[in-house]
């Protein structure tokens, strides 16, 4: 029944739930993804979305499956030859995961600039668009999303939020409850390093005009102060106090001033944050609520994150200290949620009724305000129109990258050039053996006209022109599969609003196994 199915899903998705959580999985299962063209690249992307359980997919493709298609596409078989490609691929992708609903549309593909026209439609409809292509040993991905907000970016090496430079009242009281000088060795050696640093900081303040240790010299002096604080045995030699070692090790980062990063400040100063309306998306209502907290309640600082790293300490001292931070975080989150409520009310929206919805709402607020306020991110990609237009082409990025003639940027220029070639000759260069020789010079003409049209004074090595003819628009499966993995994860980031998507052009060179990201 339902419960058994839910349990089976939890087991099946266990390894990924540990990365994006149940709420991330829920977002995935409510997502509907559309794939245009069931090429090898397309089906490889979709495979990596079907396996983790997206809600639904639709494949749009008017082509009939050819022998060539079956040669590089794992999701087509010889039985598919002659069938509509969308239909054939849907069948073999569908059977990867019965939780997912797949369907297809047989649509005849218009020639040429479909991509730009589709891009314009999706831009206006505010639907995220990911353009992927494998061309020889080169893979390319372009993300087109007007504005993507990241609630949980899960940064790799984030600094802790300890507030030692400006301890909130409850933390101050807790620190005051310790008297290091009167402690027995056992307690002394198992006092959390946060408390130790705080205590010695007070000592330092009284001798340094209430200024934190600022430079290396002062931090070293502070470390020495800590060293002096280590208990000594009857012979005057320092005891083994690992918690003091930890304190000394953490001086560098623990004494940093608590402040709001420029990324978050930028988010606060966005228009969407200023003008809350009934249409404002949830992320911006939350961001504004956090901003109001910062201004009204937080003394210019974000809500407390509420987590502390593990450290040498006895259970009781650690748990008590951890709870001080946790409770403050909950308190702050509750204040933020009151701001959310009043913002919603001010635009005539009622807060979600009912206990369960309120809990879900609060959890949502807590996720944003507490653990993640410092890590909010907004990704804005330029439109395809902006990238392609002569007025707004990113000349600087292109020319500076091409200072290195083997930069992945040359591959981007080649991809733009072969599209130009196609427009002029109705085929890609070098598809047939007899074309290769002739197409090399024709492609060179396309490259030069592209560079001239955009006013790019860069030079493209002949080797790349030759290579892009040689590969004859082939789509090797392994390169398609690499891109398929990359693209699927970017789609998952968009859907779950977790982790940070790239901005906005990713090029993979399978010849050198290198890659680069450009903002074009």
């Amino acid at each position, binding site marked *: 029944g339902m419960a058994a199915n839910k349990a089976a899903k939890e087991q099946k998705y266990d*390894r990924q739930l540990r990365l994006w959580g149940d709420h991330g999985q829920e977002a995935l299962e409510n997502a509907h993804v559309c794939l245009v063209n069931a090429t090898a690249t397309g089906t490889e992307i979709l495979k990596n979305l079907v396996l983790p359980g997206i809600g639904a997919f639709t494949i749009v493709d008017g082509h009939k499956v050819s022998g060539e298609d079956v040669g590089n596409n794992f999701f087509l078989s010889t039985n598919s030859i002659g069938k509509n490609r969308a239909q054939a691929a849907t069948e073999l992708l569908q059977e990867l995961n019965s939780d997912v609903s797949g369907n297809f549309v047989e649509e005849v593909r218009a020639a040429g600039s479909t991509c730009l026209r589709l891009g314009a439609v999706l831009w206006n409809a505010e639907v995220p668009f990911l353009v992927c292509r494998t061309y020889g040993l080169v893979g390319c991905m372009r993300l087109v999303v007007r504005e993507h907000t990241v609630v949980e970016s899960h*940064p790799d090496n984030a600094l802790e939020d300890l507030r030692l430079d400006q301890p909130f009242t409850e933390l101050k009281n807790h620190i005051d409850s310790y008297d290091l000088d009167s402690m027995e060795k056992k307690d002394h050696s198992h006092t959390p390093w946060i408390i130790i640093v705080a205590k010695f900081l007070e000592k330092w303040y009284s001798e340094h005009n209430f200024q934190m240790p600022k430079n290396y010299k002062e931090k070293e002096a502070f470390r020495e102060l800590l060293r002096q604080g280590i208990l000594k045995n009857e012979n005057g030699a320092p005891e083994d106090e690992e918690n003091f070692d930890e304190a000394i090790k953490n001086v560098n980062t623990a004494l940093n001033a608590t402040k709001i990063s420029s990324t978050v400040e930028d988010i606060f100063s966005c228009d969407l944050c200023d003008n809350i309306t009934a249409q404002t998306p949830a992320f911006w209502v939350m961001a504004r609520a956090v901003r109001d907290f910062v201004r009204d309640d937080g003394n210019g600082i974000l809500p407390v994150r509420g987590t502390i790293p*593990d450290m040498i300490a006895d259970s009781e001292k*650690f748990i008590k200290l951890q709870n001080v931070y946790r409770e403050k975080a909950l308190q702050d989150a509750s204040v933020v949620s009151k701001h959310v409520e009043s913002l919603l009310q001010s635009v005539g929206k009622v807060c979600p009724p009912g206990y369960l919805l309120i809990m879900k709402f609060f959890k949502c607020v807590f996720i944003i305000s507490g653990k993640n306020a410092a890590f909010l991110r907004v990704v804005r990609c330029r439109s395809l129109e902006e990238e392609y237009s002569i007025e707004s082409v990113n000349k600087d990025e292109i020319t500076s990258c091409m200072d290195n003639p083997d930069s992945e940027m040359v591959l981007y220029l080649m991809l733009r050039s072969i599209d130009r070639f196609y427009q002029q000759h109705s085929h890609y260069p070098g598809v047939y053996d007899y074309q290769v020789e002739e197409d090399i010079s024709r492609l060179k003409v396309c490259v030069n006209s592209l560079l001239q049209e955009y006013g790019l004074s860069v030079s493209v090595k002949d080797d790349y022109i030759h290579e892009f003819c040689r590969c004859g628009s082939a789509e090797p499966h392994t390169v398609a599969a690499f891109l398929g993995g990359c693209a699927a994860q970017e789609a998952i980031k968009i859907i779950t609003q977790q982790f940070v998507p790239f901005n906005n052009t*990713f090029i993979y060179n399978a010849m050198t196994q290198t890659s680069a*990201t450009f903002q074009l």
Partner: protein
Amino acid sequence: MADGDELMAVDEGHVACGGDWDGRWNHLKKFLERSGPFTLPDFEPGTEALSGFRNIHVVDMDTIDISNLNRQFLFRSKDVGRPKAEVAAEFVNSRVPGCNVTPHCQKIQDFDESFYRKFHIIVCGLDSVIARRWMNGMLISLLNYENGVVDQSTIIPLIDGGTEGFKGNARVILPGMTACIDCTLELYPPQINFPMCTIASMPRLPEHCIEFARILQWPKEEPFGDGVSLDGDNPEHIQWVFMKAQERASEFNITGVTYRLTQGVVKRVIPAVASTNAVIAAACATEAFKIATSAYVTLNNYLVFSDVDGLYTYTFEAERKENCSACSQVPQDLQFSSSAKLQDVLQYLTESTSLQMKSPAITTTLQGKNKTLYLQVINIKRSLVFSFSLSPSVLVSLTGAELGLADGQELAVADVTTPQTVLFKLNFTS
């Protein structure tokens, strides 16, 4: 990645076999029949290599688990419980006509040189450093040296890939020529376990409570019978650990013990998704293609990938270690004072970052006879005759002189990390 090996053989010189169809090789032909600016000097354009990789052997001792299905796309829920190698072979053979995958539901260590020698390329997606080192050692053992120079025809390239969450790496190893697994052992830092005193008397995290139940309570209470060890794949066992961990946690006011966390800690679960595995597997396959065809320069020699924040790759040449214990052909020197005990030698073998042995067994030749100096006894109910008629605990406390070892003595050390014994030379410093 699937926790197994793929050992590929490439067809040579055969015209398209039965099972091919019109256009099948169109995408591939461009790279095999046409030379280009980036092909290697020894590349020979031609139609013969059209057959792709036909003969593939897959070695994997595991069976399919439901938690594999979120990424291991050759398996379906109906396959749960069946051997991975078998199901993978069936699926590929059916989906890719003409491909001949032979499954081996075994450990890589079950095979010897005669097996591995047959292959042109070895690709690994193993789940432990130990297994990687073993395979690395096996391919090194196949090398022939003439006048100190390696005979290139005995080199079997090793392509190795690994992933964890949203990070992964792929590397190409030419045994005897480029950096091997052991050359770069520091890239695999040893697993950090929680200190026992924290677990036993000073828990602070839910993980500490779980480890308490696993390491201390389970052996003491033997909840599922005498001698029944904790099986991470048994939900009843995990449930027991979970409940015990919860009890301990509430004793210390620790929150956060969940079933999922318990399972994660007990099984040392590494989060995994389809996308990262697809990326790394594809990178490995691309390298296999390059090696087989010389169509492009192979990766030289290590690729790192992460897509947590945007996408990031870093490619570098890992360097060979001059005195690598696996591939340098240089006899390993052991420097100890003459008063050092056998214990000290064992500690060095297991704790040195360049050796990281797991449970070394040491033998040596004394008075023309092969003597076992140390062998870890796992099952104490088994009786083992020791060369010196002394128990291991007494043996290890003896010095070199007491054991009859001379300066320059050669010690042969066997360990799970290598298929061949490693020879060490004992040098007494005082």
